């Protein structure tokens, strides 16, 4: 007899449609239109992270103006402050922050790893000690979904049992199996399956067998999308890409693949080639606040003395508002006077990420993604012997050879 979870997902129409617009004949890359309740999203897509219901220093109009179609909010943070009840009163997170396009909320699972001093995990859920008032809170699959239902995000993530990718041994297997059980509990707890999409998160650490087992189980659940989790946490890149490609090999073609926590340009391009559609990372926006501007040839530390008299924009070819009006020298000086310097770089970095993904998508649509990869790598690294070996290997595995 079908489980409650399975019956639930069979009865209601999905608020997500994936249209595959183009598939790269050489690699595993796809270009898709992801239709979500608030708007369509062109993939591959990079999703900026606005943890506490705001993208640090940027208004929703500015974010919209950059072409962002989906961004992230975080269940753990927003669940603490201001809390799900208040946000529900404000017409969900969309209403609260006044963002009219799509929102994806993480479940709070990752905080188990990033805030590990504060947490304790068992079958029930994750116990956190609140850093704000010392109170203990239990984040269970049901609680996480309940908060995300109140937030009203277009895509919700299951609560998974997250283990750092550098951990080995039986804990990894325990976490993988528990994540499956928690997925079923999340599916059962979702009050809004007709409006909010619940994604599963594939775990299994760096162990191919565990990953495969997780994939086999989770793909039996009828969820609208899958995330590849438990990676991007400091593991060796050689292990990282192998887990990514193993995962995409076993995920259904007609559902979106979301690789969590990936945001460096090289990683994005390679992982698109390995078959991923969606990405998120705090890196571009966080590094901006330290004055680091992302450019096709790496990054530029605007606060460094060498830019004090550099009167070009960050990237002469970049059409973002920052590059259209300001020079490196002015931004360098502004960092000494006002916080708006950070906002200028944040805007530029988001523009860089979104432009990169747009170019990637277009090249897939035009059938020239492998050429795009080659010229991207040429621009990013001074010479071929500086290409990271993991990237060379990963690309070779999908038939792209770099000189």
């Amino acid at each position, binding site marked *: 007899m079908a489980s409650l979870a399975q019956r639930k997902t069979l009865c209601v129409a999905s608020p997500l449609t994936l249209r595959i617009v183009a598939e790269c004949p050489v690699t595993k890359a796809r270009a898709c239109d992801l239709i979500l309740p608030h708007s369509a999203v062109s993939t591959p897509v990079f999703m900026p992270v606005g943890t506490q219901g705001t993208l640090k*220093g940027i*208004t929703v109009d500015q974010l919209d103006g950059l072409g962002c179609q989906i961004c992230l909010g975080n269940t753990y943070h927003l669940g603490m402050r201001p809390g799900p009840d*208040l946000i529900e009163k404000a017409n969900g997170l969309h209403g609260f922050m006044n963002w009219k396009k799509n929102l994806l909320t993480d479940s709070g699972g990752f905080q188990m790893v990033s805030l590990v001093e504060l947490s304790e995990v068992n079958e029930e859920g994750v116990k956190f000690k609140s850093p704000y008032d010392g109170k203990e809170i239990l984040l269970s699959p049901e609680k996480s979904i309940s908060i995300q239902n109140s937030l009203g995000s277009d895509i919700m993530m299951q609560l998974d049992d997250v283990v750092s990718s550098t951990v080995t041994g039986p804990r990894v297997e325990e976490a993988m199996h528990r994540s499956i059980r928690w997925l079923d509990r999340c599916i059962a707890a979702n009050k809004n399956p007709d409006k909010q999409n619940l994604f599963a998160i594939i775990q299994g650490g760096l162990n191919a067998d565990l990953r495969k087992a997780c994939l086999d189980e989770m793909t039996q659940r009828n969820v609208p999308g899958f995330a590849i989790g438990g990676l991007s946490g400091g593991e060796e890149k050689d292990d990282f890409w192998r887990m990514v490609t193993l995962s995409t090999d076993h995920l259904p073609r007609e559902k979106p693949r979301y690789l969590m926590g990936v945001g460096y340009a090289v990683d994005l391009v390679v992982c698109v080639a390995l078959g991923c559609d969606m990405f998120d990372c705090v890196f571009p926006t966080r590094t901006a606040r330290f004055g680091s501007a992302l450019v096709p040839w790496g990054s530029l530390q605007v606060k460094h003395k060498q830019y004090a*008299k550099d009167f070009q924009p960050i990237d002469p070819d970049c059409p973002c508002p920052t590059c259209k009006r300001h020079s490196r020298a002015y931004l360098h000086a*502004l960092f000494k006077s006002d916080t*708006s310097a950070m*906002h200028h770089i944040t805007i530029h970095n988001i523009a860089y990420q979104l432009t990169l993904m747009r170019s990637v998508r277009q090249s897939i649509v035009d059938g020239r993604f492998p050429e795009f990869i080659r010229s991207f790598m040429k621009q990013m690294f001074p010479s071929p012997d500086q290409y990271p070996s993991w990237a060379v290997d990963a690309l070779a595995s999908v038939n792209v050879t770099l000189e």
Partner: protein
Amino acid sequence: MAGSRIKLELSRVVQGESRLGVLKGLGRTGQHCLEVPGCLLYSHLGTVPHLTQDTLHTLKNIPAVTQVTLSSVAEHQEVLQEFKGGFKKFAGLHDTVVYCSLHDPAALCPPGYTTNKTVSVWGSGGRIELTVAKFMAIQKTIQPDWYQSMADGETWQSNTSRKRLRKSVDRTLAHLDECLTIHQNSQDLQGVEVFGVVEGGDILEERARSARETAKRPVAGFCLDGFQTGSMDQTLRTQLIKAIAKELPEDKPRLLQGVGRPDEVLACVEAGVDLFEGFFPFQVTERGCALSFSFDISLDPERAVLELNDDETCRAGEGQPNGEVTDGDQTQMTSFEINLKDKRYHDDFRPLVEGCGCYCCVNHQRAYLHHLLVTNELLAGVLLMIHNTAHYIGFFSTLREALANDKLDLLKRR
């Protein structure tokens, strides 16, 4: 110096003191104008705090003049020298007039650092000492549309001796003469206007002397220094400004430094001031507050008042000062604002101010601003700066309207 291009066209003078008009001929090509009484746009290195051009331009009626301070610019002299294009171009400012002041009105200067020949400003790297020669060299690299001459303004402590105050007047006049000489001989500063600075502390005779002597020089207008909020009470300030005004020509503008509170602005307009530095909205923003005072001139000609929002006056319960500002402390909250960090706003879904058309009030609610402040999010500063600037601009607009329609005396605090 050739006749100044800046022209103050007064349309009304009320009771011989309050002036209403337009300052014309601003900028190198003389095409900008600023209505008076008015405020300047406060900036850090040419940028309105927290804002980029996109967020700044959500505002309507942005003042045509941006104030830039030597304290933020002086340390970049070498860079500007190499850039060669002047500060406006360096900062990406396209359609504004740049006025360069010596000090930042929102940042207090430690006293004790002026000498006969020098004054000091504080940049991000520490103190920078300026002689007139260096001061003028920096102005040449900045190429502002107008600037205040170098002045010894370290006289805002209330117990400063008469001797010291006399010295500040003398030094300031000497600096002015030296500035003007260099200015007149400089190609780079052709078309740039200079304002003289009136000093004299709290001594009436010194103030009058400073005004009289400065007025003899070929300056385009006058800065009134040493009246900063907290340095003296408004009665004395009014008295001194009136005395100064008597010595100044009617047709040249008077810019009052360091005063921004709406009630003080009102009183100073009545004493004859035309221009104010626009730093008050920034200070309000920095303490997580939103300007909320009403400046509605009601249609009832007899009972129009500048009133506080009713529900905000019971702030006394939180131990907040109500209206009065303690001596010298510009960072204290005033009765013109609401403190959004207060718990009462956590589920208040109204805009900051009903009927305010600014980007923040149209798009966001008090509860959201409260959340941003509690979680220390950068967006709080952006949104508050937009609202506070819009509100302040609106206040000046109404102030001018009140002057035009003889309602100034009704636009007062209850």
